[in-house]
Structure formats: C-alpha cells, structure tokens
C-alpha cells in the first residue's frame, strides 16, 4: 500500500510507531520526502580565493625543492659547509627578528616565551646535532645509494602529504619527523661530518622554523604572505633549473597544476555535488568540547 492506495480511514496517519494505527508499518502518505534537504551547507568557492590558499601548498613543495637543490650543491662540492652554516645563521637571526616584530601584543601576553628559552632551545639543537654528526655520517655507509634515494623520496612525500596546512605553527609530528629522517638519510651521503652538520641545520631551518614564520605572516600580513609564497616558488624553480632543467620543468608543471588547475577542478565540480540530508541522519554534536578539556 502506498500513497496511491485506497483512501484510509478518517483518522489521519501520524509518523509514530508507538501507536497502533490502522495502517501497515511501511505506510507513507503524500508528505513523503518533504524533509529532504539537498546540498545543505555546501560552500560556494570563489576561484581566486582558492588559488590563494593553494599557493601555500605550492610554497611547501618549492621549499622541498630548495632543500634538495642545496643538497645537490653540497654534494657536488659547489657549496662549502661553512658558507651554508653562515647563511643559515644569518637567515635564522633575520627570521627571528621578523617573527618578533610580527607578534602582536595580545599573543605575547597569553603565551610568554622568553628569549632565554629560545636561546636554550637553539643551543640544544646545535650542540646535539654537532655531537652526533660523526655518528650520523656513518649511518648509511653500507646502504646502497638507490635505497637511500628511495627512502628519502618516500619520506619527503609523506612530509608533504601530512603537513598541517591549516595551522602549521605547532609542527605536525609525522611531517616534521619524516622530513628530518629524509634529511638525515641525505646528509649522511655527504663527504664530511661538517657537511652533515650544516645540512641538518639547514633542514631544521627549512622544515621546522620556516613554517612558524609563515604562520605569523599569514595571520598578520596576508598580502605579504602571498608575495612570499610566489617568491619561494620562483626561487625553487630557478634553483632546480640551475642543476637540472628537466627537474625544473617538472616542478613548474606541478606547481601550475596545484595552484591553477586543481582549484579550477574544485570549483567546476561543485555543481555535481548531490548530498542529501534528512531526519534519518545520525545526530551530530555541534558543541565545542574544548572547554571540557581545561
């Protein structure tokens, strides 16, 4: 029996199951599917806004490319470790200064982190890395080159995939660890212990400290953030191009597709979305539970 059946008795049908009604259990009347909602809560994307956000992903890809370029230079002996160390130190200081400038007043009060604590962290990093670099250097001696390259590639891919693009400031464990693992593998292939130390410091800078600065930039100076992203992308392509043109072409293609093609697809395919919601869905809790945790 459906809505086209014989007219029912005078008592109207109610959508309850605890009453004994003269209708069968699977009876529905003409108000069937009235409460169906289509594509509720769908977001309207605007192309250029998505492109701007996708720039961050492209930026991270270029960061990795820059790191690989530096490593290629060190391996071929075109870049001396002392120069790399010096440059890293200078950039770190500059970045630190910029970070302090960009920090607003409100944030310093809620989370005071003194300069002394930062200095302590930096000392720990440097001393530890310096102390362990002879050990790190001999780690992959007996492993074949292909294995090392394969491991590093997989790890860098994992880093890119698991990077917390939404909030990069406390760095995600898996992404940072994967990047550091890859950098240790690559760094142990270099000819000397000082090379290893320099490479690792550079990796720390690029993968651990640079995202923190970017987060500040994105929060406080969005226009400059976009400019920085573009700059990094160009630098990545250019640097890779100086070592291998094929790589540069590939990188440019990848950047282009991530920045321009994927947002286009996202916006275009939105109109094919067909979600239905209704009273048959599971209940969702929309409260913010974070105030229970403190």
């Amino acid at each position, binding site marked *: 029996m459906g809505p086209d059946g014989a007219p029912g008795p005078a008592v109207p049908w109610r959508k309850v199951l605890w009453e004994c009604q003269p209708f069968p259990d699977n009876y529905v009347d003409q108000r069937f599917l009235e409460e169906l909602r289509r594509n509720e809560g769908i977001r309207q994307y605007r192309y250029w806004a998505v492109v701007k956000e996708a720039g961050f992903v492209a930026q991270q890809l270029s960061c990795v490319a820059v790191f690989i370029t530096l490593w290629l230079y060190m391996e071929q002996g075109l870049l001396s470790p002392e120069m790399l160390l010096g440059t890293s130190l200078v950039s770190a200081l500059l970045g630190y200064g910029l970070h302090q400038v960009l920090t607003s007043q409100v944030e310093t009060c809620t989370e005071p982190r003194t300069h002394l604590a930062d200095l302590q*962290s930096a000392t*720990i*990093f440097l001393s*530890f*890395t310096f102390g*362990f670099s002879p*050990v*790190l250097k*001999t*780690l*992959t*001696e*007996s*492993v074949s080159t292909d294995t090392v390259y394969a491991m590093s590639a997989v790890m860098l891919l994992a880093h890119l995939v698991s990077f917390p693009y939404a909030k990069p400031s*406390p*760095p*995600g*464990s*898996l992404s*940072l*660890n994967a990047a*550091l*693992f890859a950098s*240790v*593998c690559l760094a142990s292939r270099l000819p000397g212990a000082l090379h290893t130390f320099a490479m690792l410091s550079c990796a*720390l800078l690029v993968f*651990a400290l640079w995202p923190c600065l970017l987060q500040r930039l994105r929060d406080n100076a969005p226009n400059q953030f976009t400019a920085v992203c573009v700059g990094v992308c160009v630098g990545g392509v250019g640097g890779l191009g100086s070592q291998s043109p094929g790589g540069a072409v590939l990188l440019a293609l990848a950047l282009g597709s991530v920045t321009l093609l994927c947002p286009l697809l996202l916006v275009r395919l939105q109109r094919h979305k067909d979600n239905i919601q209704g009273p048959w869905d599971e209940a969702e809790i929309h409260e913010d539970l974070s105030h229970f945790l403190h």
Partner: protein
Amino acid sequence: MVLKIFFPQCCNRADSGLLVGRWISGHDSAVVLAVIHYPFIPGQVKQYVQKMQAQSGVELSVLGSWSLPKEGQEGMESFLRDLSTIFPQERWLQIRRQMGKTGFTCEILKQGPNGRIAERKEKKKQEEADGGDGEEEDEEKVIFVHYEQRKVMLSQLHPIQSGDRDPKTDPPSELRQMFQTVARSQPLFFLDRYDDGPLKSTHWQSEGREASIIVELLKQASVPLCMLIGWLLSIWTWVCNIRIFSLYPLRFLSSKLSTCVQLSYRTEHMRTISSLKPATDHTQFMRKANILVSFLVDVALGVLLMSWLYRDNHITMLANTLVPVADHVSKELEELLQWLMGAPAGLKMNRALDQVLGRFFLYHIHLWISYIHLMSPFIEGILWYGGLSACFGLTFALSLLSDMVALLTFHIYCFYVYGARLYCLKIYGLSSLWRLFRGKKWNVLRQRVDSCSYDLDQLFIGTLLFTILLFLLPTTALYYLVFTLLRLVVVLFQGVLHLSVDFINSFPLFAVALRVCRSYRLAEGVKFRVLCDEPGSALHLMMEINPLKGSAAVQTYRTPTYSCYPKDSWGALVKKLFVGELIYPWRHKTTKTD
C-alpha cells in the same frame, strides 16, 4: 535389599563356631574376620572380643554362627542357634555349609521392635543344579563375597584418603571401610593355634605367625643406625648454621650452585629416614621406603662411577684434555667474532659499531683464556677431589659437573647478558621513538597509546635518535643472536644434567618395584569373579584386587623435589627472545614439605 557378607577364603573349611567381624556402618554389609571354634565359654569370647576392640580400634562384634558339621557333631546347630540369645545383636547370621557341597546357606534372625521375628530364608547353591526351582519370597538377598585375607590386609586402596576426615564430607565407601577394617584388625590375627589360651580361632595366620629373620634383624639394626645418622645430621646442621655462612654473598652463591642445593635436599631426605618414630600411615611409609631405595641406588651408581674414574689414570686423561678443549673453544669464538666484524652473510653492518663490539668481546675472550691457563696446574687436583664426591651419590657428581660447566662457560653468559641488554635497550628505545615519530605516546596510567603534542626540541632530538637506532639495529641484532644461540646451547646441556639429577631424586623406585612384585599391595579397586550364580539362590563372588596402574603409582609416590621444568611455553620464550629479555628457562621449584 541386599546383604553383603565379606567372607575370608581361609575360613571356608573352618570348624564350627562363632563368626567375629564388623558390621559396616551405613551400608548393608558385614566383614567376617575370624571364626572362634567350639568349645568356648561365651563369657571369655565376650572378653576377648572387647580386648581386641580396645587394641585395634575396630568395632568388633560377634556376627553370628558358622556350622560345618563333622561326624559326631549333631545337635551343634541347635546349640549355635541358641547362642543368639547370649550375644544380643540386631541381626544374627547363621551360615551353614555341608561337607561335600560347595554352597552356603544363610539364615538371618532379626530382632525387630516386637521381639524376635525370625525370617527363614533358605538359599541353596549347587554347582550342577539346573536352576533353582524353589519359590522364595526374596525380600532380602545375601551375597557372599570371598576375599583373600592376607592380601587385603596388606593392600592399600588408592586414591589415599588422609586419616582424619572432615565429618561434613561423604563417609568413606563400603570398599574402603572393608579394607580399613581388615588392615586395622592385625591384633586379631596374632592368636595362632600354638597359643595356649582358652580360645581357638581360624584366620589367615592361624597356622602359625609368619616372620622373616632378615626383616627382624634389619629392624633391630635400624634403631642404632638411625640414631647414628641423626647425630651426624645434627652436627652437620650445626656447621651449616654457623653465622659466617649466613652472610649475603655466600648465601646467594649457595642458592645458585646446584651442588649446595642437592646437598640440602639430601639432608632433608636423611632427616626423614632417620627419624626414630615408625611410619604412622601408608604414605609416610612409602615415602621413607622410596627415599631409602633411591638413595641406595644413587650411592651404588656413584660408586660405580668412582670405580671407573680412579682406574687407569682416567683423571689425568680428563685433565689433560680439558685445557686443549678450552683453547679450541676460545679459538673458535675468536674466529666467529672476526667473521662478525667483517660482512657476515652479506648483511649491512655499521662498521664503527661493529669494530667496537668485536674488540670488546675479543678482549674478554683473551682474559678468559689467560684465566684458564692460570688454573691449568690445579685442574687435576680439583678433578681428583671432585670425583670423591661421587661416593655420596651419582647426583652429587652430576651437580658438580653442572656447576663446573657453569663456571667454565661464565664468559658466554657475560657476553649473552651484554648483548641482550644492549638489544633490549635498543628495542625499547625504538618502539618508544616510533610512537614519537607518529605523534603518539604511551599512557602509563591507562596502559594504552594516546596522541600527544610534542615540543619542537623533543621532536627534533627524538627523530635523530630514532634514525640512529634504526640504522644500528642490524649490527646489534646480529651480535645478540649469536650470543643467545651459544647461551642456549649451554643452558640445554645444564638442563639435561638437572633433569637427570631430578629424575634420580624423585623417581619412586620402591613403589614401582612393589607394583611389579607384590602388585596386590597397591590397589586401585577390586574386580569380582562369579563363583556360582543361579537364579533364585545366593550369589558367591570372588573379590580380586585390581592393582594400580604403573603410571598412577609413579604419579602418586613421586618424592617432591625441586622439579626442574621449563618456566615458559614456547610462545612466551620466543617472545622474550625477540624483545631481548634475559632468559632463565629452567625454573627450580622450592621443595614443599607436606
């Protein structure tokens, strides 16, 4: 209702008289123990029965009358029937047998509440009869169960129940009560036909008491021997309890050396044997006998070993082969380490760590070889005096051998511990850092893995350490594997020695010999054989003792010692090996005194 009468075979041809025995409480049965012959004075019979009851602790009573009329003894029956008035009982049995016939007839006189009610039941039993054709009202049947009195007296029913039982548990079964009755009625069987007393009785010993001269001599000799052993033991215990031996290092050492452990167990055993009180029940007797026999066998084997060892300069030969064997072993170990320090089996070892570990172990081997060479002049003397310990028993010689093997392979044990600790540390570090790699942490309170947000420096240092540990894993794992295998070989050998010592200590040789030679003494149950069964007449069954199975005898009478058995199952052992925990695969149970 069926009345069972347990009738001893020796009384089948006894002269007429009174039946002495016991009614088994709770069941409808009676055990006949002896027949007291005519002529007798009833008062003296009563006195005798009371005296026997006091001596043996069994509730003896006069059950009824037995008549096997010979020529010139007519009128016996009526006399015996009238006796029922003298000995007041609830039930009075009158068992009759005709010469030439194999059957018994039984009448039961019951004393009911209204005076005497005589129920006459006649049951004839004939071997060649063609079926009973008499019509009887069978309200009470009688079954005669014939038993061999001597065997039942000596036998012990298994599973053994301890003497004082909780009144709340079930009362013992009928069979058990019957066995206990016969076993405890020994004073009844001392009256033989050479006695000049007023009464004559028939039982299994009535032809004359049996005794063996050797057993009597041994019993006489054992008293001063026990006193001597007890005195020696007290001196030994005093020596052991001197305070200097209670210092911690000596005590720890003596608990680890198997010779000292064996010595303490033998002291316990000696103490059990040399106690002056005779064994109170069957279990104690068997325990003492087993300990004595295994001790004697042990000493015999030890003396055999000594006679081989001290002949033909065997000791010098052994001593001369020991040092070259040790040299050979150390050379093999050095070669093994050199191989490990290269590229063993094509595995990728970290060269620096490899060299460090390899040199460390090589230095240890060098130390050990110097120690052996230092000791080499004394080895012959040590072996000579050590061989003397075999006079205490083969177990001592084996324990000494096990201890010497442990001392000589101490360096392997050290290597194993180093390798295992290093490996274990590495595995724990790796698992913890792997959790850090994924951003998780072990919650000790909840015993589970939770997510955790780490600081930057924690992440950084954690990843570096993880990388280092991961790449150094093959090297450490290989050293661990090699030394674990060596250690397991030594442990296996020691385990075999300990197992054989334990076997000699605990195997109940006396019980097994008893089971083989006198199998009726250890009874598991009984089986019945029908002597004659005719419809409508009494049943005569022959009760034969079912001896205990050999495996059950060994199980029941094993002397509890430090049984040496593997502590872990195979799965747990493999897991421990994988994680790097130290293995002590043989566990020694401390002895339990019951």
